[in-house]
């Protein structure tokens, strides 16, 4: 199709007005998600072809207003001002017009051409609400189209009108409304002043600038001071005088007066039969009735526990099978490469560095897919808002937000989660400080990869108390996460809590299409990340554990020992031994002994290689520090490897203690080995468990922290902060234990 023209159209509206549903209904799969540069607000773009026209649609973040307070609002406003879309489709919820039109009024004040999509007219009608669209359109002077985003009804009509209006390319025409006798005359005077000085007029209309000076809008004031400090000062002084006057006479301030008049304008707009409500306003709708149970003092928390547990079960149980497929797929790929590639560095790099590293991370994909699906479901039904509502009192005590609970649970608040989807789950949190504190503390939870390490150490040192120990560790991780969140919010993220004011939207059945799009786009972002940064870091870790290699002389020594054993065997036995035949029946007793000896030599070589590598050297150098927490170099190397992925702790400990592989039987023998080692005892094991619980998040998580917080700074912070905390606590436990005489 030949595209004759392309128009840029923005979609704006309140959260929960069905904006994203409409966006999905229009663009379908022809959309992509990115981030606005430098910040974590999602930018969704898609297009629609209509009779040779290309409509490029941008889904702005859902906002209630166009002030400069939140990131979302700034993004929406800057997009309108700097990208100059031909028009804005403003989606409003028909059953909640008054509040939804507050944003509309601000769009009209800015002057951008608007087409109003009166959404969810079906839900409104079922509540007895009828809107006279023609009259509303006449009074607002903008086209008003009734739509039902869930079914796509009204979408074509909306887009046709949109294309017609866009083709006319109407100039921006700011709406003038009266803000009362105290403000209007001053506004007129400021407007004239701005107009005659050509002040910021390339960006905003004059009256809007005056209005923003009156509202003391930080962003506009700042750009004004840069362009023309003299005029900016004068405008600020004028606004201050009005503010002073209002404070003295009415005990109020300009912003409040302006908002009052906007709402006054809206009520006048809807008067005289524009909105008819045939039902009594105090009627309890199904949604309210549901709330009476779901947020009830007794049943609310109970149902919530069940639902959260259900999400957890769904995410981790149903994803277990596909995760194991991916896992065995990568193992098979590794084995295949192992068999076809010639022995040497390249093989080691591909098998141990790339396939193990990236494969370990990509195996999480089903988990992330399921987690995002559950969260999208809870979010779209409106239940997530209730969770935040019920738990806010608890989490606020620690400087967090009611919505933080989701991230904690997914990260392993019920032991066995994963911090990667956990960190990503904070996206539903709109308060920046609370969100960051949640991101930084969620990795303290006991994720699924820490559990096998705990299980091994518990089996070795606390065999009779397995369940109690696991429960204790779960409680400990919650305490640690909440207390450290409090600490973070008192120090580096200090500041009052972000206003809560959370809308509890009516319960709704989400659309499958919406859920799938939502789930897929977030999962895809994760996959892209794994392909780049995690690949590079996996290779780095492989190099640390591989280089420098053992000097030739020592390698030869091991080789000589092996040859010596082989030479003592008859020739035919020698072949079966070197081929590594394992069946006892196939080999003689002498050969079996030889195989065992050679295995021991291989293990000794692996241990020597590890000790000789940079990782081994770092491990030994760290003994100076870690002697206080009770770890020697083998543990240190394992912990270092655990930073790449916590699963590696066991296999690395195995290598360091000369045990090959990490199959289940050998895990048992590793714990046996540790029990028999005189250096190990309960105290040391417990100190290590707590250290593993708290120390640096794994590579995948750190990458996610960098992405979700928008800067690498916080990722590095979490590395240093978590490890420091872990170390201090471990030292406290170990030294305290020694002092009490527990260890020994």
């Amino acid at each position: 199709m030949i595209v004759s023209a392309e128009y840029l159209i923005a979609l704006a509206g309140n959260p929960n007005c069905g904006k994203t549903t409409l966006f999905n209904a229009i663009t379908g799969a022809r959309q992509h998600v990115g981030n606005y540069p430098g910040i974590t607000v999602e930018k969704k773009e898609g297009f629609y072809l209509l009779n040779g026209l290309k409509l490029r649609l941008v889904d702005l973040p859902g906002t209630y207003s166009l002030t400069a307070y939140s990131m979302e609002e700034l993004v929406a406003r800057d997009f309108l001002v700097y990208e100059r879309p031909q028009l804005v489709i403003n989606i409003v919820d028909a059953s909640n017009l008054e509040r939804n039109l507050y944003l509309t009024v601000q769009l009209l004040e800015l002057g951008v051409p608007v087409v109003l999509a009166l959404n969810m007219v079906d839900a409104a009608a079922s509540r007895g609400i009828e809107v006279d669209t023609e009259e509303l359109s006449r009074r607002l002077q903008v086209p008003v189209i009734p739509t039902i985003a869930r079914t796509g009804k009204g979408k074509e009509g909306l887009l046709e009108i949109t294309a017609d209006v866009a083709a006319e390319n109407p100039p921006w025409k700011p709406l003038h409304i009266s803000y009362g006798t105290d403000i209007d005359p001053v506004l007129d005077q400021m407007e004239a002043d701005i107009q005659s000085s050509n002040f910021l007029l390339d960006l905003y209309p004059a009256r809007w600038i005056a209005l923003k000076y009156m509202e003391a809008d930080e962003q506009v004031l700042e750009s004004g001071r840069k362009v023309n400090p003299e005029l900016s000062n004068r405008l600020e002084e004028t606004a201050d005088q009005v503010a002073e006057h209002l404070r003295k006479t009415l005990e109020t301030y300009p912003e409040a007066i302006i908002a009052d008049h906007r709402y006054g304008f809206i009520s006048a707009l809807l008067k005289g039969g524009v909105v008819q409500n045939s039902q009594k306003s105090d009627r309890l709708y199904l949604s309210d009735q549901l709330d009476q149970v779901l947020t009830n003092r007794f049943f609310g928390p109970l149902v919530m526990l069940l639902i959260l547990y259900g999400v957890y079960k769904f995410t981790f149980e149903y994803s277990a099978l596909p995760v194991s497929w991916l896992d065995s797929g990568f193992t098979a790929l590794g084995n295949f490469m192992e068999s076809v590639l010639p022995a040497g560095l390249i093989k080691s790099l591909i098998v141990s560095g790339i396939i193990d590293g990236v494969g370990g991370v990509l195996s999480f994909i089903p988990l992330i897919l399921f987690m995002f699906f559950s969260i999208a479901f809870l979010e779209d039904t409106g239940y997530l808002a209730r969770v935040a509502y019920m738990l806010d009192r608890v989490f606020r005590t620690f400087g967090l937000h009611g919505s933080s609970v989701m991230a904690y649970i997914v990260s392993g608040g019920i032991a066995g989660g994963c911090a990667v989807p956990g960190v990503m789950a904070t996206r539903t949190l709109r308060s920046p400080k609370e969100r960051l504190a949640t991101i930084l503390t969620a990795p303290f939870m006991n994720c699924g990869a820490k559990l096998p390490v705990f299980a091994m150490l518990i089996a070795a040192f606390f065999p009779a108390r397995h369940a109690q120990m696991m429960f204790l560790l779960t409680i400990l991780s919650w305490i640690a996460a909440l207390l450290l969140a409090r600490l973070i919010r008192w120090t580096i993220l200090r500041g009052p809590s972000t206003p809560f004011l959370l809308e509890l939207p009516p319960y709704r059945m989400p659309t499958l299409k919406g859920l799938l799009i939502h789930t897929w786009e977030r999962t895809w972002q994760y996959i892209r990340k794994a392909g780049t940064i995690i690949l590079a870091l996996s290779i780095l870790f492989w190099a640390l554990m591989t280089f420098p290699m053992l000097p030739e002389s020592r390698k030869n020594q091991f080789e000589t020992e092996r040859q010596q054993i082989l030479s003592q065997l008859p020739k035919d036995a020698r072949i079966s031994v070197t081929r590594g035949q394992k069946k006892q029946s196939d080999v003689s007793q002498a050969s079996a002994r030889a195989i065992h000896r050679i295995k021991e030599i291989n293990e000794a070589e692996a241990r020597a290689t590890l000790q000789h590598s940079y990782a081994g050297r770092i491990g030994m150098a760290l003994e100076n520090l870690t002697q206080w927490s009770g770890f020697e170099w083998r543990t240190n190397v394992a912990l270092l490897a655990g930073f790449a992925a916590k699963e590696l702790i066991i296999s690395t400990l195995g290598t360091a203690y000369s045990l090959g592989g990490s199959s289940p039987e050998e895990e048992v023998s590793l714990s046996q080995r540790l029990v028999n080692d005189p250096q190990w005892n309960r105290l040391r094991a417990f100190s290590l468990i707590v250290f593993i619980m708290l120390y640096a998040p794994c590579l995948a998580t750190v990458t996610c922290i960098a992405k979700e917080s928008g800067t690498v700074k916080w990722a590095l912070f979490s590395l240093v902060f978590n490890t420091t905390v872990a170390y201090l606590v471990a030292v406290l436990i170990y030294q305290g234990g020694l002092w009490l005489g527990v260890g020994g």
Partner: protein
Amino acid sequence: MPIMLLRQMSVGQTGVIAKVTAEGELGRRIRDMGLVPGTPLKIQGRAPLKDPVAIKLRNFTLSLRNNEADYISVEVDEGE
């Protein structure tokens, strides 16, 4: 009719907002959500730990913390 703080109202009580004293970001957010003088509202419920409070106004449900509700005075309807 008596004027009281939104925090002091009990579940099921109705009234009309008389005054909003919050300034700055909180003030702006409160107004953005439609809590301006003259707006009728009803206390819909309280969270299990008595905080936050859920109110119904302009046909939607909004929850806010008690310390945020302290900035809002309401002229309470009598005889209910």
